[in-house]
Structure formats: C-alpha cells, structure tokens
C-alpha cells in the first residue's frame, strides 16, 4: 500500500503527524512530507488512523501497482 496526498486539500493541520510521526512530517513551511514509499503491514493500522484523523480527508491509501 502507498499513501496519496491530495494537495488541494492538505492544510497542514498535522493530524497525520500526530498519529504517525515516523510516516508523516509537516515542515516549518507547512508542507507535508510522506516519509515512506510503502506502508509496511506493521505500520498499516497507525497509517489508517492517520488517514481517518485528517480533518480535510486529504489522505488515502491505495494499492501498489
């Protein structure tokens, strides 16, 4: 699985970073960085929580090609 960010929606609320700080980072310029290319099975639950917590619903999880 990989994480897709809808940049039209993301407003740097940092909810993802609070839920999964090793996967999501919002920098000093309020830009969101996804730190992993693929979501490991161990990180899956935490990332799903981050996806749900985004108040703008800007994140989604999609299957790898």
């Amino acid at each position, binding site marked *: 699985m990989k994480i897709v960010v809808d940049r*039209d*929606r993301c*407003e*740097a*609320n*940092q*909810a993802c970073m*609070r*839920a999964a700080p090793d996967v999501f980072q*919002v920098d*000093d310029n*309020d830009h969101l960085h996804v730190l992993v290319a693929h979501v490991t099975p161990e990180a899956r639950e935490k990332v799903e929580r981050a996806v*749900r*917590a985004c*108040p*703008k*619903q800007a994140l989604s999880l999609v299957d790898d090609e």
Partner: protein
Amino acid sequence: MSHDTRPQVPALQFDPTAPDLDVDPHPTYARIREQAPLYYWPEARAYVVTRFDDVAQFLRDPRLSPDPTAAGQPAIDDVVSAELRGPMKSSLMRLTVKDHARVRRAVSPALTPRAVERMRPNVQRLVDEALAPFAGRDAIDIAELADFLPLRVIAMMLAIPSQHEAAFRHYGEANIRAVDPRLTMEERGVELEATIPGMRLIRALIAERRSHLGDDLLSTLIRAEAEGNRLTEDEMIGLVSALITAGSETTVHFICFAVKSLLCVPERAAEVRADPSLLRSALEEILRYDTFGKAGLTRYATVDMEIGGTRIERGARVVGMLPAALRDPRAFPDADKYDPRRDNGESLHFGSGIHFCLGAWLARLEGELMIQTLIDRYSDIEPAGEPAYAGHPVLRKIVSFPVHVTKPARAA
C-alpha cells in the same frame, strides 16, 4: 403507482428555540438520535441525519453539496440585493471543488496550527485587554467578557479599526441567523438584507487598503487578487465575509460553555488547575460534550443517493444534526460523560472534509488563552446565577452569565 417517491421516514418534531434546547439539550438530541437514523423535518423541508457515522458521511460525501444550484435547486442569490449577490455566488459554500480549493488556499496558510501559534502573544494581549475592565471587581459577566475577544482577533488579523466592530458584530449575527434551516428563501433574504451595511463597509475597507498595503491578512488577499488568476474581488469579499461571520460569534459561545462546564464545575476545574497540560484536551472535550450549535448544517443531494440507510432523491435538502452525533455512544465510549483526557482526534465538532472549519486552530488558541488567563488570575470562579439564553434559532447563545471571582491570596 404513486408518484410520491419520498421514503417513509418519521417526521421530526424539533423546535430549536425551545428553552430546554438552551439549558440542557442533550436528552432531546439523545431521544431523536436513538429513535431513528433518519427523519424528515417538515419545517426545514429537509431530511435529518443524527448518528455519528451518518453525520460524518454527510460532512465528507462529495455528492452532498452546500451549494443548492449543484443539486438543481434555486439559490438565495435570486432574492437578495445586487450588492450581496456577487460575493454570495463566490463564497466558499458556492464554489466548485476546484475553485473552492484555490480560494481556501488564499487564506488557509494564515490559519494553520503553526501560523496560529505565532499569533499567541497578540491574542494574549487581546485577552488581557478583554479582562482589563473587570480588574478589581469580584464579579464578571462571562458573556460580556467572551464577546469582546473573537471579533477583535479577526479585526487584528485583517487590520480593521475597532470603530467598525459594532457594525461587523451586527453583520455576523445576521449571517448566522440566516443559517436557520427552517427559513424559506424569502425569510433568509430578509435576514440577509441586514448585512448590507456590513457588506458596504467590507468593500470600503478593501478599496482603502488597496493604496495602503501592509502585512495584514486583507493585504495578503489583495495581493493574491492582483496576481491575476488567484482570487477575484467577489471571492475576496466572500472570504472576508466568512472570516468576520465565523469569527464573530462561534468562539464567544465556546468560551462561555468552557467557563460554565469546565471552570464552574469544581472537580473539573481542580483537574486542569493541577495539570495545565490537560487544558487543551479538556477544552476540546467541551466542544464535543457541550457544543453551542443547535440543529446543524444544510447540504443538498447532487444525485440520487443513500444516506442513513435510505434512498433520497437529487435536490433533497439534508441537515446533519451535529449536536446529536457528538454524543453518539456508537462513536464515543461513555458519550454523556465529560472526560478531559478523551481522544477527540476523529470527532466532528469542527466539521470534516473540504469545508472543515478554517478557524479551528484560532478558536482553540483563543479558548486556551482566555481560560488559562482566568485560571491564573482567579483562584476560584463560581456561578453567581444561571446563564440567560437568547432563545436563538442556530446557537445556544448565552446573553449573560454572571460569575463570582476570587483573587488568589497574596503569597507571603
């Protein structure tokens, strides 16, 4: 065959202006929420969803739009004065998804958690200013205290002179009354006529600011407009209008209920006094546990779709009853219990999805600084009477709430 395709759902009997909706609304919302997932509210000509998951879908589902024209329904613009029409057509609630993202982008960088945190010293200064008239007194009217702050904060951000605040308070109040889902188009039009002086003032302020650009948010918006395709004048006016309206009343009531249901409840106050790091989540829980909103928000079905387990037709109005959802035991364990440590990360009190409250972080900062300052200045705060409510159709609006305050004993 019957041509009446309306699904058989129970009729909602609900009077937002009933006194118990102000004083203790939660038994009413619990009864509505537990008896059925979906209602038809005749006075509002709208379906009503009440349960957490349905209200979450209501907020997030792209097939539900706040724009009636997207659902083939007439919009309010047709019955308002020409000078209100342009900004209303270009407001965040009326733009297409793509334009909506572009216009929000003009203001959202100023309201991120990081940007709002930089405003802390300025907001603290305004909190101190709000409390100054009460210095040396042993009684405070919390409604009067709270009323000062949110509009002053927005005015500071936009660099609007304080002499205009009364006009903008009136403007914001009329816009909020017009949200009442029971109003007909004509009735909403009448409410909105009261916003014309405020709208003229916004236009005048923008015209004046064009030749005196500064580092305030209004100047930032004017620069975005000047850059060509980023913002039209009507979009800018619509944004400023939304900031003033959303900033004028909502946070006032957040502060009132935080004093009433946190600081004036001795065991809750003792907990946040003993552990200041608890204040943020204690206030977040106030927004869930004792929300100031009443019926909720209105959306329109842009296609035939299912909500609350029932098919509804394109063009149907739907109201999401947020206060009922925020106490839904399906989503919150012990939903009727106030828990200052509750994880409200997935709650809906600031909405969810593309229309998520732009001012959420600003409201949180204002609430935190006002409540923390009251805690720091007074060792005890207790009600000196029951709050008086306005019987407002949209908000549990407290018009006066006297409390006794006690200064800490002077340290030896």
